């Protein structure tokens, strides 16, 4: 019997998933609050003891972990033009499993460099210029970062023609610099792989150690991915399939957490409407967006900022003081709904997270009247024909009626321009296995996909 243990060291919980390869199934899960401030190993060992109690198993062939503890991977993205290399840089950061805390365009200033320095940022991604295009701005920006004396890793993924000069600047200022392929080699052409892999490696080799998570490697075989990177990997596998195991096709994954709401779409998103022209930067097939202002607990007040006064009044008339409820939840991140009313408000907040986060993720259509008839501009991804919408995250798992929240992503009359799913089926990841299967898929994709298909159920 071959057992693998997959560990997700989250910001609140350390979650363990034990998998048996011959059975191709999850045998048990256990969790314990993460103890990154003291020693990350304590929380892990306590969770492991729980798991042993349940199963009696205490030896595993391999133990792998992913982590988003201590704030996850915080990044600053720098590019040239807002809609082009800045956007490309942001997408790379998100695709690598990071969150983008600072975004700068054009020539950066000393003030901005200082903000990066003092902003508790883990990695800077420096882009700008197509290959053979503008080089002056990235060179300027590299110098400004150098003069600010940045100690954190800087990943250069801009115009390839100035890689040598950038390397010289890195040397001159003794920066922790890395050079990879341009994120936008040609206009509107996105190339994320090289930069994404470099970011992941830096995360695993440097950031994980700096945050005290590396200590756990004394007990396990390795921390292999940032958690969102693992989830994205599993989602892509589930969509595409592996060898003889077919995938589900185009999917959307919604993860509503306490601090953030993550939306993943694994879909080409090409125009489905005749006469529609795609505009703007190319979209990644596996796309992730993270909303740091939308969450069920710590970020609940952020939901309120997205609503207009009239909407709040409407809730007030129904006897719900949404502002108060959101504040209450942000002050008690560990709150679990006890009454039906509390559960109802959680459901409402979850629905708002789903709706707003999806609006920001999905593409939209504009109608243009030309002398040759009506044409459409499509910006972003067309997800109208997506087949499955899958939910994960605390609120959805513990919810009696997860469909009520998930269905917020559907096409709706009041947002006619958004290209939302029209008639998908809904599924739920009740045992929270996406990140674990992302880890398992590094070695056993054929088993990971079978477990995903077995465990993720239609609702």
């Amino acid at each position, binding site marked *: 019997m071959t057992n693998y243990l997959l560990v997700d060291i989250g910001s609140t919980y350390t979650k363990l998933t034990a998998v048996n390869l011959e059975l191709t199934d999850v045998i048990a899960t256990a969790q314990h609050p993460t103890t990154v401030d003291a020693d990350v190993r304590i929380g892990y060992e306590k969770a492991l003891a729980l798991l042993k109690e349940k199963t009696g198993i205490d030896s595993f062939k391999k133990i792998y972990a992913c982590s988003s503890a201590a704030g996850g991977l915080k990044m600053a993205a720098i590019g*040239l*033009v807002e*809609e*082009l*290399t800045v956007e490309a840089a942001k997408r790379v950061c998100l695709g690598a499993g990071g969150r983008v805390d600072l975004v700068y365009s*054009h020539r950066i200033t000393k003030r901005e460099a200082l903000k990066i320095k003092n902003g508790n940022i883990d990695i800077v991604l420096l882009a*700008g*210029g*197509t290959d*053979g*295009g*503008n*080089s002056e701005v990235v060179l300027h920006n590299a110098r400004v970062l150098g003069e600010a004396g940045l100690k954190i890793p800087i990943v250069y993924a801009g115009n390839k023609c100035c890689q040598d000069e950038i390397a010289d600047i890195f040397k001159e200022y003794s920066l922790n610099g890395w050079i990879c392929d341009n994120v*936008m080699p*040609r*206009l509107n052409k996105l190339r994320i792989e090289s930069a994404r892999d470099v970011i992941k490696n830096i995360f695993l080799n440097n950031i994980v150690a700096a945050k005290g998570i590396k200590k756990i490697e004394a007990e396990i075989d390795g921390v292999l991915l940032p958690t969102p990177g693992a989830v994205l990997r599993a989602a892509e596998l589930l969509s595409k399939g592996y060898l003889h195991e077919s995938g589900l096709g185009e999917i959307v994954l919604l993860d509503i957490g306490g601090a953030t709401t993550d939306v993943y779409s694994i879909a080409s998103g090409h125009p489905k409407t005749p006469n529609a*022209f795609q*505009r703007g930067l190319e979209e990644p097939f596996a796309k992730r967006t993270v909303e740091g202002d939308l969450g069920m607990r710590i970020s609940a007040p952020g939901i309120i900022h997205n609503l207009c006064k009239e909407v709040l009044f409407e809730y007030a008339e129904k006897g719900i003081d949404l502002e108060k409820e959101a504040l209450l939840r942000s002050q008690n991140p560990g709150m679990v709904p006890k009454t039906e009313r509390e559960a109802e408000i959680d459901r409402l907040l979850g629905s708002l997270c789903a709706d707003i986060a999806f609006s920001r993720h999905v593409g939209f259509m504009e109608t*243009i*009247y*030309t*002398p*040759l008839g009506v*044409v459409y*501009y499509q910006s972003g991804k067309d997800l109208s024909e997506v087949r499955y919408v899958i939910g994960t995250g605390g609120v959805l798992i513990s919810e009696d009626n997860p469909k009520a929240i998930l269905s917020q992503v559907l096409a709706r009359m009041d947002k006619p321009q958004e290209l939302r799913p029209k008639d998908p089926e809904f599924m739920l990841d009740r045992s929270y296995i996406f990140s674990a299967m992302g880890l398992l898929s590094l070695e056993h994709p054929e088993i990971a996909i079978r477990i995903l298909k077995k465990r993720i159920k239609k609702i």
Partner: protein
Amino acid sequence: MKSIVIGVIGADVHAVGNKIIEYTLTNAGYNVVNVGVLSSQEDFINAAIETDAKMILVSSLYGHGEIDCRGMREKCIESGIGDIILYAGGNLVVGKQDFESVEKRFKEMGFDRVFPPGTPIESVLDIIKADLGE
């Protein structure tokens, strides 16, 4: 290799001439950055900034070119590429207007050169070369 940004401005979907221009300029040894049909002024300007282009060549065939091109030079100045060379060509205005007056209007709008309807791209290669200082 010098970069030239080309495209069709406004709500104009005439794609054939755009492809011919791309083909001819590429053959003439330029790095052609084609923003395609239905492009806004910002699409041209953003592309020129990222690719460090020396020239923007705006096409318009549906008669609304004058409205679509207005303010483009000012936007270039605002975006830090004020001295980029701007060309416009095609059926820039509605009806049979005297080309001299059209040219005058476009030059006042900040375009360096304006070409009348039916000008083949290959006939202006020498002008492009001279303007780019080659």
